[in-house]
């Protein structure tokens, strides 16, 4: 292969660093567009059922822990801030800053996942895990949602289970994206420790940043969609 006489970060098939950087950015945005469609399909399916079974979904949603959900939203927004600071540190060529802020982001992400684990366990113990083990007895007197045993649709319990299927799939896929993000950040830290980044070259940090903000935004949609359904 041709010897590189230019910047060591410039791949041989690009003419300039700008071209390489712009290509990476465009590629990442296209990837995110793809992600939007991926979650979009899920959101559409959720919206269809939410519209079809408003009472059951509202009741099911009231079983989620609003406190944990709100706490996690704050945690995730903070992690977006630390991620943005990591990118800024990359621009300044500040190696220690990069590592510090990436570690902070990983910490916040882990807190989020830990809380998610607590929530999942609660749901499991309450028999709200969809599937053969799903166990739910409606208690119409306790609901804040205007629905009674008489007005409830015929397959009320089934519809409640449907909500939890979506709850687990949606938050589960979101959590999976976060785990991948954590993996990417660990890789970035290793690269930073080996002095691979400089003021001229910090594209991977920037791209991971975009990805992380996207994961954050998905949650910003998920939170009201699944946690706040029953509060008008």
């Amino acid at each position: 292969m041709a010897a590189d006489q230019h910047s060591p970060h410039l791949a041989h098939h690009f003419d300039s660093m700008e071209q390489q950087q712009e290509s990476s950015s465009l590629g990442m945005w296209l990837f995110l567009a793809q992600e939007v469609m991926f979650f979009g399909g899920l959101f559409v399916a959720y919206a269809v059922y939410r519209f079809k079974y408003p009472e059951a979904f509202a009741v099911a949603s009231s079983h989620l822990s609003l406190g944990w959900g709100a706490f996690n939203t704050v945690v995730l927004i903070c992690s977006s801030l630390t991620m943005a600071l990591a990118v800024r540190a990359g621009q300044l060529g500040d190696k220690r800053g990069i590592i510090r802020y990436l570690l902070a982001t990983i910490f916040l992400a882990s807190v989020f996942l830990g809380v998610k684990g607590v929530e999942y366990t609660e749901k499991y113990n309450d028999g709200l895990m969809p599937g053969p083990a799903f166990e739910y007895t409606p208690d119409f007197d306790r609901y804040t949602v205007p629905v009674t045993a008489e007005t409830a649709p015929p397959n009320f319990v089934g519809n409640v289970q449907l909500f939890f299927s979506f709850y687990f799939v949606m938050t589960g896929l979101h959590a999976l994206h976060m785990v991948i993000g954590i993996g990417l950040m660990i890789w970035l830290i290793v690269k930073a420790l080996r002095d691979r980044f400089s003021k001229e070259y910090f594209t991977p940090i920037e791209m991971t940043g975009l990805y992380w903000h996207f994961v954050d935004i998905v949650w910003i949609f998920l939170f009201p969609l699944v946690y706040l359904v029953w509060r008008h």
Partner: protein
Amino acid sequence: MNDTSPPKRTHYLNAQHTVGSWLFTLDHKRIGLLYLATILLFFLLGGIAAMLFRVELMTPDPTYMESETYNRLFTMHGITMIFFFLIPSIPAVLGNFLLPLMLGTKDLAFPRLNLASWYVFTFGGLLGLGSIIFGGVDTGWTFYTPYSSTYANSNVILAALGIFIAGFGSIMTGINFIVTIHKMRAPGLTWFRLPLFIWAHYATSIIIVLGTPVIAITILLVAIERLFQIGIFDPALGGDPVLFQHLFWFYSHPAVYIMILPGMGVISEIIACFSRKRIFGYKVVALSSLAIAILGFFVWGHHMFVSSQSMYAGMIFSILSFLVAIPSAIKVFNWTATLYGGAIKLDTPMLYALGFIGLFTVGGLTGLFLASMAINVHVHDTYFVVAHFHYVMVGGMVMAFFGGLHFWWPKMTGRHFSELFGRIGAVTIFIGFNLTFFPQFIVGYLGMPRRYHVYPEEFQFLQVMSTGGSAVLALGYLVMAGYLLHSLVLGKKASSNPWRAVGLEWTTPSPPPTENFTTEPYVDYEAYDYTREEVYRDDADEVKGA
């Protein structure tokens, strides 16, 4: 031509010889060939499945197999042909090989992503293959719920995961193409100087990037529903099986355009070259690719006219489906207008291209029948539909794929195939194809539903004709396999521009060097300018002239 045996030249094929140099290659040309080998294997598998059930269909009663086996065979045929052959066929093989060459650049924007896409695709393909080996899938390639998610007694999860994973390979390729076309064009190569092949791939990539994730999530939901026995599309819980159909067709209809647009790109190249003319209405043809890509996202409901969809939704989807005919017709008319007054040569690639125009027109026009709500009710899920989409998919895309493969074969391999056998193969395939699928229009119109192997006796004649045709078709493919393999070893050495075609890929030697071009290309002329003297330049002449 005299064989003057030029001095041995280093090119992308002989630069390195180890197995590792192929399996870890970052060269888009080699990756294209890896894809070629992989998808041809799937084509063979899908073809064998088709031949097996065609034999069964010769008799009205079950003869060689039970319904169970029959269901698994047609599902295997559908899944392998659509997800593991047609969708990657032109983009991943010819697109991969040609995109950087046509753009005058050294490689795709993300060579490692490109290689990864092949591994991901192959892994998905192996899972799909595994689902067949462990007993097959019986849902049909459409995986309709709740049969697939609850009742089917076969390897749905494995096949679904295979398709899910292979889809990521497609998305990687799509992203790579869009970025490369945007950022890596040679100096002077403006958007409206791009070959139509590139425009077609740009449009295709948009569909891939925006559509594939939707099938990914849909098929993942089916797999999750089966695996954890939770309800998503399960009517017992109030789930909606028709929702699955909406999500499925939201991708799978645009996927039809993933399976035809690249073919249209190939045909534009071949028609221009063998009529020695610029494509009539170049800009409109270029933009019609985008129009098809965009409109294609809004017509999925025409698969669901009889699936409890509201009449008004049906009407809208029907009108939108008719609209797709406009950009498609623009292409067909402009190709024929290009042929008009051209200096036409009927070499093998051109035979495929002409076959494409005829067969695609039949496939497209019968699509209008299907888009009309009233007729659709009559022919829905009959052999008429089967014939229609085979005219588009096989008569269109497969013809274009092989046309393109022949056209660029000398460039890819550095060898000529036998022109005589090439023509025999092309004509055999054309005849075999029509013999196979035309009777299916009639049998479907008369009311025979698809996916049954037991049928009233009056359909036997047409079914036997169809099976006979499929044997001819298979023979045509075998002839092709024979002379192409033969050419690899004993074929005449190809010069840089054997067809005297326009395009940057013809300005570099055959096979191209690893870096594609020895001098960086500069483009100061329009696409398909067959009036330019340089077009007719070929390195064989220079050898002779010197």
